[in-house]
């Protein structure tokens, strides 16, 4: 683990991108911030600009209009930037696989670090997913 990651894991700042979702995953992500789940106790914060982001939470089945923008946004993010696919939609396109407007699952567009399946995943599952990301980063030390 490099110095950057070591500092990062203490306070991951997340940016949320919805690339053709049904809103539910987005709501559950926002729900993580509210009193019952309160993800801020782990030092995580939802932030407003991609240029401050350490983690991208991507929801939704990529469609033709949002996928190029998603790619742009990923390129603008400072690296290292970890990508989390929230929900079955970005993991495997869900039931929108045969639609004329969706193109591929998220990992065909940008590299993905953590997959959180579920439709929508419960806030507990989202928190567990991000905790796993932190574990993955901290156990990486050689």
């Amino acid at each position: 683990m490099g110095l950057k990651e070591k500092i990062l894991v203490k306070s991951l700042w997340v940016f949320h991108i919805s690339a053709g979702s049904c809103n539910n995953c987005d709501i559950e992500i926002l729900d993580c911030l509210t009193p019952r789940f309160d993800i801020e106790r782990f030092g995580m914060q939802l932030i407003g600009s991609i240029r401050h982001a350490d983690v991208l939470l991507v929801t939704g089945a990529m469609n033709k209009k949002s996928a190029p923008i998603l790619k742009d946004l990923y390129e603008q993010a400072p690296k290292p930037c970890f990508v989390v696919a929230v929900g079955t939609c970005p993991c495997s396109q869900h039931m929108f696989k045969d639609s004329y407007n969706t193109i591929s699952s998220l990992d065909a567009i940008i590299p993905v670090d953590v997959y959180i399946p579920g439709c929508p995943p419960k806030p507990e599952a989202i928190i567990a997913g991000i905790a796993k990301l932190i574990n993955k980063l901290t156990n990486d030390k050689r």
Partner: protein
Amino acid sequence: MSKKKIIPIGPYHPLQEEPEFFKLIVEGEKVVELEIEIGYNHRGIEKLAENKHWDQVTFVVERICGICSTSHPFAYVLAVEDLLGMQPPQRASYIRMIIDELQRIHSHLLWLGLAGHFIGYNTIWMWAWKAREPILDLFELISGNRQHYAMMKIGGVRKDIDPQNYQAIRKTIKELYPTLKMFEKVVKDDPVIMKRTKGVGVLTKEYAISFGALGPTARASGVNIDVRKDDPYALYDKIDWSVVVLTDGDIYAKILLRILECLESSSIILKCLESLDRIPKGEIETEVFDIPAGEGIGRVEAPRGECFHYVRSDGTNRPVRHKIRAPSFMNVATNLVTVCGYTISDAAITLAAVDPCYCCTERGAVFSKSGKKILTGEELIKLSIEKTEKLKRLYQKQNKFNFQNKNI
């Protein structure tokens, strides 16, 4: 006079949870024009539905929108039941109503929180979403999932509500009541909310009618429109309840209206539970074997307004046409008059005040490789008029339908 400038909001803006693109054209601080561009969420659901089995469509339409995720399947099953000319068992209707109303409370509280967030009042956000959690727990208790309940089924409901759980529902609703009352008082008292929302983003009654606004957006402007009263589905006509209508049309009225509707919904749920207690435990679905050729419509009052589904069958196991119109499609257009004339800082809350749901509203446009739009708006309207004329002639020839209104 200063020069016009453009302020882009979106498509990925920290304030919005959904991707959509607004172009505010401003003169100084004042917004003079607004352009809305959508399509970032378009997944082609209508077409997908035509490739799925009748039963599978219920789940596909459920995933149009996560917030009002029971309204779409509800409207769809009503449409299919209209096609079949059947009624679900009484018990199923009551269960559907309970789910529908619980969802209304959850959706309105969610919006209330976001509205607080939009005016920079995060305390409201946290409070409202905290109050919303017990409702989600109820959903988990009843259906097994916090969101996307999958309760609807052609002919009835998929799961029964266990009589043991009635008490839990009653308890949650009763505990929620004081919180809702508190919110009502807060909105009426708080000077910050007053200043930010009173007299801002006014939608007059005339505009509401001419834009065809629906649901809370129209009701806050004094238009008494509610599918549950105007064309009762399920058993809404068997239960005593009233439509909340306010007249101011500003954002304050929209906030207050939604809180009052939550209170009304709570009382509907309690009344439904009473009725459930009275009728014996039994059938929750009528089994459906075949879906004959024909067409049907279903209308449901979603938290945002009337949600409309149309299905046509040719006797096979898939719908040949499935048309969906979500309420936001009408409501979003009202932004054209409510945002213009106010300052940029009011734009965020005004744009959010209609409780827009862009994933319901998404439409697609087709472009050629060179970037030219194939079929523009005008061409589509022309096509649609031609098609209506053709159908009209066909029906008149068959004497099936009498067009009283010559302008159709």
